[in-house]
């Protein structure tokens, strides 16, 4: 019978205590794992989606809102800008590339984005089937849109006004799906792309045509300083930097995340105390077991190792369960998540999770140390003569 079997049998002898300790550790570790995975995925999504975009120009208002609506397609747009203003900005010598965006409609909650082929090349989008749009009212849909709505090329769909609801249907103009995009793991999976003309014709804008915003790439490093100032001072538009606003957003979320993280750490420490108390109490019941093991030939060291193994086995199992729990929870959140733009994935594993496991082991080790020393010191003769 090896040390693992002995320790496991001892743990199993007290099922309720075992379950309580496992739960405590699993919840603590689970929350930490979920935070770790969630934050890393959100951060990665944010960075991925903003890749290649140096600056966003749009109607004046909150810069964060402009970034959220134009890059992540989460919030409402700040308003519209005239096509004329946009064109003159696109022609600015400091601008290397400019991609216009026109928002306003949705299909079953997926945003319809009027743009040009610049959007496709900016994000390196590729087709899984069909072709890109060439005429008004032809659309290309993201992979998740196709999957969720069971759409394929050649299907016709109707958009509705607004960004979320399916009331106020534009039932006079159907869109024709000409292509489906390959899955990218970015917001593009959840978009319906079409030409600017489609959006304009849908809304019957003939004279003063407007767009929502423009994604810009700098031509040089110098533009980084000069261009935002130029836009903010001399046009009716505002410029917002995705990098800066993402950082601000992250800092805002960070306060809440920190609170949850400390709570999880407290839970882990509590679990450590619980393991300690359980082991310590079980020692009192088990003094004879330990003494008899010594009589049978177990050394002091073996008894010490047995208690330490019990503690670490307990917390290691708990941490492992917790990490699994964290993944399951995150996957469940991803599954039922309302906003498909930043869907969580519970099947991604990070190397930092090994640290969680190590932390769990350490807690078990520390919690078991004192009881193990106590067990190490047990005097066989004294114990056995007490009957």
């Amino acid at each position, binding site marked *: 019978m090896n040390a693992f079997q002995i320790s496991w049998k001892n743990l199993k002898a007290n099922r309720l205590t075992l379950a309580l300790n496992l739960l405590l550790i699993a919840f603590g570790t689970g929350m930490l794992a979920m935070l770790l995975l969630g934050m890393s995925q959100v951060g990665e999504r944010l960075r991925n989606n903003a890749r290649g975009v140096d600056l966003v120009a749009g109607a004046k208002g909150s810069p964060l809102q402009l970034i959220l609506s134009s890059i992540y397609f989460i919030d409402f747009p700040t308003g519209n800008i005239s096509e004329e203003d946009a064109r003159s900005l696109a022609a600015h010598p400091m601008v290397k590339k400019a991609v216009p965006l026109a928002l306003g409609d949705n299909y079953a909650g997926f945003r319809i984005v009027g743009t040009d082929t610049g959007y496709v090349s900016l994000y390196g989008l590729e087709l899984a089937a069909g072709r890109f749009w060439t005429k008004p009212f032809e659309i290309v849909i993201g992979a998740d849109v196709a999957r969720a709505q069971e759409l394929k090329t050649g299907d016709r769909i109707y958009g509705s006004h607004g960004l979320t609801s399916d009331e106020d249907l534009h039932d006079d103009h159907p869109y024709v799906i000409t292509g489906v995009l390959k899955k990218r793991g970015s917001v593009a999976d959840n978009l319906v792309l079409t030409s600017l003309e489609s959006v304009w014709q849908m809304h019957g804008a003939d004279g003063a045509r407007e767009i929502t915003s423009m994604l810009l790439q700098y031509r040089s490093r110098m533009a980084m300083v000069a261009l935002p100032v130029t836009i903010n001072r001399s046009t009716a538009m505002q410029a917002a930097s995705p990098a800066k606003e993402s950082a601000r957003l992250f800092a805002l979320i960070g306060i809440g995340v920190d609170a949850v993280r400390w709570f999880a750490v407290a839970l882990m420490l509590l679990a450590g105390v619980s393991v300690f108390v359980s082991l310590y109490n079980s020692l009192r019941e088990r003094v004879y077991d330990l003494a008899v*093991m010594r009589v049978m030939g177990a*050394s002091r060291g073996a008894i010490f190792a047995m208690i330490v193994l019990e503690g670490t086995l307990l917390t290691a199992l708990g941490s492992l369960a917790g990490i699994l729990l964290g993944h399951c929870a995150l996957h469940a959140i991803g599954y039922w998540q309302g906003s498909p733009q930043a869907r969580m994935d519970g099947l991604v594993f990070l190397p930092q999770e090994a640290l969680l496991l190590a932390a769990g082991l350490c807690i078990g080790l520390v919690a078991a140390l004192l009881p193990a020393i106590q067990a190490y010191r047990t005097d*066989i003769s004294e114990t056995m003569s007490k009957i």
Partner: protein
Amino acid sequence: MLQTSRLTKTFPNGTSLRFPDWKVGRGEQWLLLGESGSGKTTLLHMLGGLLRPASGRIVVNGADLYTLPARALDRFRGQHIGIVFQQPHLIRSMTVEENLLLAQSFAGIGKDIFRIREVLHALEMEHKRHAYPQELSQGQAQRAGIARALVNRPALLLADEPTSSLDNRNADAAIRLLSDLAASERSTLIVCTHDDRVKEAFFKDFMFELRHERISNQLEKS
């Protein structure tokens, strides 16, 4: 086989016991008698390698017990000395068979299921080998305790008041089993008791014990 010389033990309260020298031959069966508190258990624990004497030496099976390093003494105890206690003290989280397995692995001898079955069979406990200690009667638990003490074929079998928790019938059976098994395994047996039932049982079967009893009475007086 077993020899003590100039053994003394000092207790925390300052009192000190001196034990007369004692020599036990291989395969002999001895009774260690005395009133409670007279040092029987102390002497038995010292013989079993559980309690270091203040001075003097104990040689068991050629090994001077308390000159061995701690780890070697533990191993020696596991391999060569079997101890039956007043209470069986089986490990509660394990079945009877696992308790015996544990004795084999702590002694550092290989797992030997056949030997376990053999011992359990001899004690008529084979049908209970998958039972947990709390599922056993007092008598069965004590028999399992005896089985555990015997499983490694100890050269020296020590029993400390093995019958005190048993009724007449079980006490009689336990003593008979201890004595018979020790004889068939060629183990030296020392039973420490103040139970008259044990004295009577031994008197019938091993008449020469009378002499030893007197020696152990002297033990108590010293």
